[in-house]
């Protein structure tokens, strides 16, 4: 059976997070990525993980970076990589996008709706992580829905052409913007993804990112292909 995963929940209100756990379980998610502030303590992250475990949901800690320049990006990556399981970079310029794409510490890159940066073939070609598409932009459109759909179709096309994995997330900022996994896959069919690709982008692809990073963060991991065997 498929394990569904939503890697991007941006819920800030603690009460809402607790309510969301129940809803997420009902919707059929097994793994969820919750965005934390970079300053959040590890104890608090563990508390949330424990709470979600009561609902049989695996919580992955995530941080969203929005760097202004290369130095800021590299320094925050150095600081936060060992603390969070998923690191996402919201690219505000093409320069930042290229640097984030090349860096293997970055798991996901996404492009905001301000159109300052664009997902191009040259970025896709060097991208080590995955491209993230946040459905919240389409569910709660700030501009015309056709413009946003066009952007997502363009991004999905480039990603498919360059064999870049696509991760579809809700990007929900409140409880009412969370969508069930099958619905998320159905929306991504609008971006001209194949049905199997759409299902993989809400299940196997995000799951493999979480699993890979957990192995890397474990104390047994030394380097690529090397680990301590007890």
């Amino acid at each position, binding site marked *: 059976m498929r394990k569904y995963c939503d890697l991007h929940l941006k819920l800030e209100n603690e009460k809402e997070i607790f309510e969301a756990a129940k*809803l997420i379980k*009902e*919707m059929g998610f097994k793994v969820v990525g919750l965005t934390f502030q970079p300053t959040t303590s590890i104890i608090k992250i563990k508390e949330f993980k424990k709470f979600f475990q009561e609902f049989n949901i695996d919580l992955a800690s995530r941080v969203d970076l929005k760097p202004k320049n290369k130095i800021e990006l590299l320094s925050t990556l150095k600081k936060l990589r060992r603390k969070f399981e998923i690191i996402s970079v919201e690219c505000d310029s093409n320069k930042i996008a290229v640097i984030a794409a090349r860096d293997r510490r970055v798991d996901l890159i996404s492009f905001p709706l301000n159109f300052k940066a664009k997902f191009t073939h040259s970025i896709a070609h060097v991208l080590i992580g995955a491209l993230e598409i946040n*459905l919240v932009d*389409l*569910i*709660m459109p700030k501009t015309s*829905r056709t413009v946003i759909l066009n952007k997502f179709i363009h991004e999905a096309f480039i990603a498919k052409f360059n064999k870049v994995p696509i991760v579809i997330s809700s990007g929900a900022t409140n*409880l*009412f*913007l*969370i*969508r*069930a996994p*099958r*619905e*998320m896959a*159905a*929306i991504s*069919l*609008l971006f001209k993804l194949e*049905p199997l690709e759409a299902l993989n982008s809400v299940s196997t692809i995000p799951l493999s990112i979480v699993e890979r990073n957990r192995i890397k963060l474990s104390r047994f991991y030394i380097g690529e292909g090397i680990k301590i065997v007890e």
Partner: protein
Amino acid sequence: MPLKRESFRYLLLKIITKNINAELNREKLQSALLNSILNLFGETGLVESKFKLLIFNKEKKFAVVKCAKNFINNFRAAVALITNLNNEEALIFIAKVSGTIKGIKKAVLSFQSFNKKNGSSQ
């Protein structure tokens, strides 16, 4: 020559509103669903969907709809893009899909007993 019968899917929709006491009615839900399909897929899409609202429960906040089998993914996308019901922030999600009305009625019964057990008003 035998004619191929049209096949349908029956869907159990669960509705969650921000205001628990929000007044919902059948017409509002139907128009929200129709408008969403119309906006996304146009009039031909709406005809292809063969959508029909069969059951609506105001108290338990669930509905059963019927739609064409080959339109199911489009219907899911249309449902997912609904954010408002009767000017109230709302979330609609598909809790169960079945090929027969009998199957969906079974799911409705288990859904009602689940609500009773948990004592939830939604």
